[in-house]
Every structure is written in C-alpha cells, then in structure tokens.
C-alpha cells in the first residue's frame, strides 16, 4: 500500500511538470546494417583514391611503359597492362578521378538546376510550372544517349561539356522529385504559418521548404550519381566519353574488351571498379531508406 502511494505521488508529480511521454521517439540517427557499413567503406575508399590517387599510382595514366599490350600482372604492373601497354592499376586509380569526380560534379549541377526549377515550379505554379514541365517532359521523352550524342557532336567532347550535358539530362528527374516534394511541403501548416506571419517567399523556400526536402533528395542523390556514372560509361562506349589520355573506367572497359577473349583482365578490373562503386552507393541508399513497409510486411502470415 505504501509503495502504492509513493507510486501515485510519482505519477501526479509527473503530470504536474508537463513532462509527458513524447508521441514520437526522439529523432533516430541513420543506422546502417553491416552490408551498409561495408558499402560506406568502399565509397570512402574510392573517395580517398580520388584525393591521393595520382601520388600513389605507380605510373602516369598516359605512360606506355609496358612491354606489350594485354599482359598479365608482372613486376610492378600489379594488374597487368592494357591494350597499349599502359599500367591498368594506374589507369584505374587515375580513372576514379575522372569517372567519379565528373559524375559527382554533374550530379551536383543536375541538383542545382533540378531543385531550383522544381521548387520554382512548385511554389510559383501556373504557367511557369506549365512551361518548365513541358520542356522537362520533352527532354525526358528523348533518349538520353541521343541527347548526349547530339550535344557532344555539336560542342565537342570536353569534360565541361560532359558534365553539362549529363547534368541537364539528369536534372529532369531531379526536377520532378523536387517539384513533387515542393508541392506537398508548400501546403504544410508550418508553411501556412510562415505565410500568415507575412514571410517572404525566399525565406519560406530557404528555411521551410529546402530543409524538409533535403533528406529525400539526399537519398535520391546516390541513385542519380550511379545513373550518371553509367551514362558517361555508355557515352564512352560510343567513343564520346572522356578525352584521352585521361582514363575513365567506362572507356577502359570498352577499349580492352577484346582482351577478354585471350584471358586479359584489362577490362574486368575497371568493370569491377564501376560495379563496386555503384553497387555500394545503391546499397547505402537502400539501407538509409530502410523499407518502412518491410517491418509491417514481416508480420504477414
């Protein structure tokens, strides 16, 4: 009975200090499965390579020091040589810079364009929305390789062009997402509240819309990045990719394919490089957007 009373008092005390139990659990940090952790490790690894690559590469990407083309690993050609007798390892290391670096830049640019227009369309609506959306649709409707081909044939294939064209192509999908997000954030009560307060449009976008759009966009970033990597590889396949002697993984796969038939791994290694990077990114994204439905689905009988 006595401890019952004390319990009672506790409860009442609690009620008086309005320390109620939170409805939602406190903000949970992104938690990665072990797979996710490995994936992160891989991505980090490549990022490091990008930074310190050139200083650790045994050769320069353009050096043709190998005895011959398509050689298996020997003394300090740890992954053998490519069809011109260049060191595969060095080229992969240098290639990281071009392939990933360019893709990241392109994706970032795509996001700047996509988000700006997307939010603008969502916030302004009306004919502005209409115009932007139509143009967006038509770019979507055209096969991206085709766009790439035309753009590069017209403007030549410099790294900046590559970045530009991939950015434009992938901005379209970013635009769609950003627009959708923007539209349903704009009708949130807290935005209404800001409007009622008399806040300017810019302030609303900057401190109400963007912060709330950030996370979903971030997860999408990974996927876009992968697409850009693959897109640039495809361009390389058509011989429109990054300019020699700069090595990029896509064209490395491409130019050494023939080696496969007589057991040269010169095209396997860069392919692995692409795969490890893109798969890791995808795994991380999957992990972060941990399928909310999954937990409920597990309860099915």
């Amino acid at each position, binding site marked *: 009975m006595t401890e019952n009373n004390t319990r009672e008092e506790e409860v009442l005390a609690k009620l008086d200090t309005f320390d109620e139990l939170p409805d939602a659990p406190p903000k949970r940090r992104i938690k990665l499965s072990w797979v996710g952790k490995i994936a992160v490790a891989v991505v980090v690894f490549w990022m490091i390579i990008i930074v310190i690559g050139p200083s650790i590469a045994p050769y*320069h990407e*353009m*050096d*043709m020091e190998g005895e*011959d*083309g*398509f050689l298996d690993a020997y003394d300090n050609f740890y992954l053998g040589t490519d*069809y*011109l*007798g260049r060191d595969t390892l060095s080229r992969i290391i240098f290639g990281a810079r071009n392939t990933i670096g360019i893709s990241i830049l392109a994706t970032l640019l795509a996001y700047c364009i996509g988000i700006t227009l997307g939010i603008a369309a969502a916030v302004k609506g009306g004919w502005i929305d209409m115009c932007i959306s139509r143009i967006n649709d038509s770019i979507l409707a055209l096969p991206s390789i085709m766009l790439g081909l035309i753009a*590069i*044939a017209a403007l*030549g*294939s410099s790294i900046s062009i590559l970045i530009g064209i991939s950015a434009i192509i992938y901005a379209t999908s970013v635009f769609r997402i950003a627009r959708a997000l923007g539209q349903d954030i704009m009708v949130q009560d807290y935005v209404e509240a800001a409007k009622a307060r008399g806040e300017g449009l810019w302030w609303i976008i900057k401190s109400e819309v963007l912060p709330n759009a950030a996370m979903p966009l971030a997860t999408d970033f990974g996927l876009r990045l992968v697409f850009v990597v693959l897109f640039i590889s495809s361009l390389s396949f058509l*011989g*429109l990719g990054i*300019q*020699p*002697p700069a090595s990029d993984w896509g064209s490395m796969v491409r*130019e*050494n*394919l*023939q*080696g496969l*038939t*007589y057991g040269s791994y010169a095209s396997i290694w860069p392919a692995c490089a692409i795969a490890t990077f893109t798969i890791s990114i995808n795994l991380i994204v999957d992990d972060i957007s941990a399928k909310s439905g999954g937990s409920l689905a597990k309860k099915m009988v």
Partner: protein
Amino acid sequence: MKDKFRPQSGDITLSDLDPSDRSLVENAVKKGFSRREILKIMMATGVTAATANSLFTKSGEAMASTPKKGGSIRMASNLHGPDDQLDPRLFTSTIDYTRGRATYNSLIRHSNELVPQAELAETFEPNSDASEWTFKIRKGVSFHDGSPMTADDVVYSMSRHLGEDSTSVIKSVMSSVKEWKKVGQHEVKAILHSSNADLPTLLGLFQNKIIKNGSTGEGNGTGPFKMDSFEPGVKSVHTRNEDYWAEGANLDTIEITGITDPVARVNALISGDIQMATVIDPKAFRQVEEAEGVTLLSTPAALQMGICCLKNTAPGENADFVKGMQYIQDRERIVKKILKGKGSVGNDTPVMSAHGPDFCSELAQREFDPDKAKFHFKKAGISGAEIFSAPVVSGVQDAVLLAQANCAKIGFDLQVKKVPTDGYWGAVWMNEPVNVVTWNMRPTANSQMAIQFAPGAAWNDTYWNNDRMGELLRLSLSEIDPDKRHAMYCEMQTLIHNESGMVIPAFSNINDGISSNIMGMPSVPLGQLGACEWPELVWLA
C-alpha cells in the same frame, strides 16, 4: 607468321602459306605471270627467296585447286548507314565499293600488282603525248535488265564526273579529262586538258563504274551479281549473274551488311555469323589469329597514318615545330605495339614500297629522337600544341596518344582533342592547325602525292604549296627513262620529307578477317578485302 617457313625450308605446300600470299601466287599463276614476276611479288610480301622458290615449284597445285561454283558469303563492312549508295559517283565507303564491284563494271580494273587491266574496255590506247585515250568497248555485254551496254552508256557514265554541276566525289580527280566522246557504237574517246599517262589507273577508281544511260545506277549494272534487295544501313543481297559476259563469279549469293562495332564484327566473324569482316582492329589480331577457321588477311598498303600540320598558320607554319613532331614519333613502337607488326614504318612521305620502283628507298629513314624533337620545339619557341584526332585509320588515335606521352617526357604539352569521325572531314580536317588524316592508297606514287601536295590542289591538306613540287609532278608523268623518273620521284619525296607540314610515322596494312575456306582472295592494296575485287574471284573450298 613467316617464321613458320624457316624450319622446313625444303618442301612447303601452298596450304602452308597464309591466304594473302597464297591468293597472290594463285592469281599470279592464273594470269600466267613469269617466274621472275611472281618471285618479285612474293619478295615484296616478305617471303624469303628460298621459300619463294620452293613454293613456285609447287605452284602446280595452285593451278590444280581450281575454283568451284556455289556457296554464299556474308560480308560485314565497318561503316554503313542510311547514306549507303547505289550511285557510283557518290560512293565513299567500302560497303558502297563492294556493292559497286559486285553490281557494276568499270572500263579498267587493277591487278594485284596495280597493273591496269581491261575490263569493259577491250583495249585502251593513248595518242602520242597521252593527251587523248581511245577505248574499245567490249561487245555482247548487257545490263541486268537485259539491255545491251554501248558507248552511250560509257560516255554518259564517265561524263557524270565532269562539269560544273557534277556532284561526283572524284570530280577533281577526273578534272584532267575535258570530255568523253562516242566514236562508234563500241568505241569512246577521252580528250584531256593535258597529257596524263596515268589515266587508265584513274579509271580503275571505285567511282568510275559504268551504269545505264540516263540512270543513277539503281543497282542495274553489268556486274557479276544481280541485286535482289537493298536496305540502306541494313543489308543488300546479290545473286550470281548467270549471263555474265566473262566466266563469272563462283558464289551463288553474297550478302553485304555492316557491323559498326569492331568487337561485334570480330565476334561475328569468329562465331561464323559472317565470313568476311573488314577493318580488323589491331587489338583483335591475336583473337582472329588464334580463332579456329578464320584467317587474318593483312595486305601491305600505303594506308598512311598522317598528321597534317597546316603550313598557313601557327604552329605548322614554323618548320621546327613540324620537325619536332616528326622526331617525337616512335615509329618502331607504333608498328610493333600499336599496329602489332601489321604495318610499316613511314618516312614522312605518302609513298612506300608498295608503290614499287617509284618509292625512294635511298631517302634516309627518320628515327625516333626525343632530344632532337626537344631541340626543335625549343628552337620553334613552342611549348605546347593541340592535335585533333579521329579514328580515321586504325591505330592513329593510339599513335597520337603515344606521341603525347613522349612529348610529356620532354616537357612538351601536346593536347589531344578526340572528335567523332562524322563531321571530321568537314569541320576539322584542313581547318584545325594540327589534325590527323589518312588516304586510301592510290595506284601510282604520282597520284598518291598529287592529291595532297600538288600546289593549289583541292585536298592539299597541309596548305604546302611548292612550285617545284608541282613542276615535278607534271614532268614525271611524261618521263619515260626509269632512272630520270626515279630521280624525280626521289626529289619529290625528299621535298615532302623535309619541307611539307606532313608527319607520316607509319603505314597501316589493310587488315581484314575472312573464314579460312575462302579461296582466291585478291590482294589489291587499294582498299579493304583486296580493294573489293573479291566478289568475282573468290570461291569456297
């Protein structure tokens, strides 16, 4: 490949030879060449004298393995598209040439040794100063639609290359002809502006096909094959022309298609989906050589791997820059590593051994010498340059990369701008200060040099205008005395070697892949697959 002869010098059978040499011999024997000629030819392709001798004794076999009729072949070219043509005067690619060769005939055709031979013309005679040529036209030749071929058709066809409003690809090449005149029902006359001893060889050009009067070709020719179907950019099917004027083709049908992707082309060849593939990439040589049932045909040719430094602008106008570019070329490595041996070192002139006696072998070979290169670049006061490159000939891209790597070593910054082939000839070649170029081999050293280096010529792609050069080109045409003639040619090649803006580190062989049971392949070095002469000649073993 040659090595395999050395051990057993004594008796090798014809089959031991690789098809290119084999067909060489076979054709030679068929044409009843003298022993000396055949030996000469074979030496040219690098066969040792001993082998050649012992071979010749066996040439009886060559006669023995007579062609047999029947069978069909599917041939895949490297380029095709909606712009595939049936109009000879607009032919630009191997696939057009091949269709042309199967469907039409010309007045003159080339032998493997580049000797002009009569085809629709029975005979051809120049007048005294070779300013007029008379052609007797073969009788009893009829088009696929049955109508007989007469002088009118010839005059019509040949005149399509002349005149202001002609869109002929070879308009300027044929410009030395003033007009074509019908002399009789089966005789025509070509009246030239100036004398030209080489006219017959010009008539062997792929575009000089005889088509029906008033037509634009449309696949109705006098050739060994009739055209069944033609889809631009897809394929064409041809069946043997049974009432052909000559002994005619051996194959029943040929399908001509294109596979643009080099890897795919080789894979298709190896897996037997196609029997002939043009332009094998050096990367794939080993694959083709090692594969069962397919053979790599490699014909030495003056397929130049050229770098044009325009003389009318910087940096090309500076002679030392050009010298630098010439010395930085690691010619040996290009031939060994990039062309995998299927090519020959170039000496910065478009003429090479395949051109026969007119090649100036005594001209000292320019070697790879970074220090000299460095010296010249320094002297020129140029620290870097930009070179535009497209895959116009196999290995050229890589050669440029090699040069770039070597330049980097001597602190010269050579920027490579890789551009797609489409639009290259219009936008880059002859426009950008430094660019790559190639030319199909021309039958004569003169014509070879004339295209590029005749002062003011339409395609003088280094804008190097040298009057002496022009003079020599003219004189050499009518010079009869071998020694004088050779001297002239040497002077021209030396001029180009030293003064033009041309860098020619190497010549690529013409490399094609065929399945091993194809016999009687021609080896005319003027184009892929024996300059597309094969349809009428080959048979299946």
